[in-house]
């Protein structure tokens, strides 16, 4: 069975669509370790990659997974790995270093919330590095952004993270896996394959800035400086979507699957006459600071809606740069297992919160946790000034 490029729409869950999109983009190596809600990405990879002559490794841990994908990508193959936030936490040393090594790895986070935003955009690892982060809002967009991820990774020799979640991974949509062509890319002359061994010009893929004797030596500082010169160029890859911002009094910023709820809610509120607009970052890094700044120019208030205690809101504050007050809407919301979708992700809940912000009213508590307050133990009580 060849790569499933087709315009025929088939009902499939996001995990499968993502794997089929990766294969369509030429991905021929995947390694992963089961963890909810990422597990199905590994299952579909194990099933579909061998059919196209690819390799799927059932890694013994997330450390092996990212290591194997690193090695595969170093040979010039399109390679990917992934996990959920906790598993990506384990991979952080490797994700940091392989950015310095300019390994074009694609990484999937099927997150349990939007609380991995910092991990994705600030980088959970050590040192000064950035990953391009793409945040699809639904399965259809995930098919496009997955293919874009491989393209951008190769274009810049920089890892690209695709930020998904439980809803994206497990929602079935009728989709067609259409191949996208983002343009020609140069050959991977830097890749290792053994053919230059013994020539005096053997290849090195390294974060340490050490070239072979007689070749260009960056050194560690030089390598880091060299990568730093890439960052302003990476910022050109910013992508975003806006709606109803031209005359908006209230602007909401949201990403990923919750953004679709936000957009739907705002469409309804607009129909009721409320001047509310939205900015949806498609790249979380580079963040669309300029677009949010412009949208906030004439707004009375800006809110970030996110399923977390507030991480996206930091970037929104930076973007708004004091033009209007910035508030965080939403919060931690999950199901009983801790992996999935909570009560907050509901159009009415979302619309209520947006309208409250628009009217200057207090935010309602998270459904089910109305009575929750943190109780200070007696010894923590301090005389308040």
């Amino acid at each position, binding site marked *: 069975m060849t790569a499933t490029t087709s315009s025929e729409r088939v009902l499939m869950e996001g995990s499968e669509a993502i794997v089929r999109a990766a294969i369509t983009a030429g991905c021929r190596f995947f390694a992963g370790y089961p963890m909810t809600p990422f597990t199905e990405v590994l299952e579909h990879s194990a099933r579909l990659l061998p059919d196209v002559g690819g390799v799927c*490794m059932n890694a013994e841990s997330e450390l092996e997974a990212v290591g194997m*994908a*690193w*090695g595969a990508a170093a040979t010039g193959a399109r390679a990917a790995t992934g996990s959920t936030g906790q598993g990506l936490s384990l991979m952080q040393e490797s994700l940091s270093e392989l950015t310095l090594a300019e390994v074009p790895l694609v990484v999937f986070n099927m997150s349990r919330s939007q609380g991995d935003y910092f991990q994705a955009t600030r980088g959970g690892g050590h040192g000064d590095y950035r990953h391009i982060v793409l945040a699809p809002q639904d399965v259809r967009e995930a098919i496009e952004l997955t293919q874009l991820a491989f393209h951008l990774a190769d274009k810049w020799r920089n890892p690209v993270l695709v930020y998904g979640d439980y809803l994206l991974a497990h929602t079935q949509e009728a989709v067609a896996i259409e191949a996208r062509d983002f343009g020609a890319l140069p050959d991977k002359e830097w890749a290792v394959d053994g053919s230059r061994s013994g020539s005096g010009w053997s*290849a090195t893929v*390294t974060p340490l800035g*050490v070239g072979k004797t*007689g070749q260009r030596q960056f050194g560690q500082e030089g390598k880091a400086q060299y990568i730093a010169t890439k960052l302003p160029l990476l910022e050109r890859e910013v992508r975003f979507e806006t709606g109803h911002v031209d005359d908006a009094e209230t602007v909401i910023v949201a990403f990923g699957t919750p953004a679709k709820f936000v957009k739907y809610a705002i469409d309804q509120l607009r129909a009721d006459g409320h001047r509310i607009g939205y900015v949806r970052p498609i790249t979380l890094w580079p963040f669309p600071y300029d677009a949010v700044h412009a949208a906030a120019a004439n707004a009375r208030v800006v809110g970030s809606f996110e399923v977390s205690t507030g991480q996206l809101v930091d970037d929104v504050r930076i973007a708004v740069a004091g033009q209007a007050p910035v508030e965080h809407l939403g919060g931690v919301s999950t199901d009983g297992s801790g992996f999935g979708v909570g009560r907050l992700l509901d159009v009415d809940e979302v619309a209520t919160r947006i309208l409250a912000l628009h009217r200057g009213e207090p935010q309602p508590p998270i459904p089910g946790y109305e009575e929750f307050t943190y109780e200070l133990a007696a010894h923590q009580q301090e005389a308040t000034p």
Partner: protein
Amino acid sequence: MSTTATPRGLGPVLDTRVAPSSGARVVEAQMPDLLLTEEHSLCPGCGEPLAVRVFLEAITELGLTQQAIAVAGIGCYTAFSGSIDVDLVQALHGRAPSVATGVKRMLPDSVVFTLQGDGDMVNEGLQEVLHTAARGERVTCILLNNGVFGETGGHMTSTSVLGQRTKNTIDGRDAELHGYPILIGDLISRLEGVAYVARGSVHNAGAVARTKRMFRRAFETQTSGAGFSFVEVLTMCPTGWFVPTADGPGELQRTLGEVHVMGELKVDGKIKTTEELHDENVPRQREIEAKFAAGGLDI
């Protein structure tokens, strides 16, 4: 020309600045083909370059040069990542086996080997090498074992022997506090995907010669597709052991060498434990040393 006084019994110092212009052939070249420079920043008396020489020579002699891909770990030997003339992927501390797996799975006709130290492989990366071995990956993992983390200045690893003094076991490794050393070759040999396991050493010329044969067999194992191959090499670290450089080989034999014994632990499906190697090892070493004394061993 030297002005050294001639020691009693020896003739004058000979001129060794230039090669004989005729009437002689090279027995051993100064440098292996696959090493770009003899310069390195490793300590005087370090055993690691001795191992590097012989595995690079083995690759060339087996005709595997243009298939060879190295995956380097992090340790003193990382200094060779710039001078080994082999396509190379630099991995993190302990993580070379998984990177090697990814390379080999994408390029099954390549000859992939890792270069790791004991701190790298047996501390940080214990699960990596065990899983790679269990999977029977057709790669060759090379362990340079000096019983210390050399690059950080000489600290205890999982292979340090009881009583060994290091900067963080200054009174000697104590089983109560620090546990017991891991004999990694024995762990690996029991895994079914593993085809060849050997433990060499570089404490004298005979041991180096024996170790070179182990490397040849390991690479032949890889190219035959029989399974995972593994060569451990005990190396001197006089700096990490607090001994003068000239005492390195003796110290190796007295300490690491008594615990991590030289020999082939798994070959042709037969497993020998380190304990079983103790008995065979001494006569075998004597045999090789005698051949050297008689005028050289054809390596």
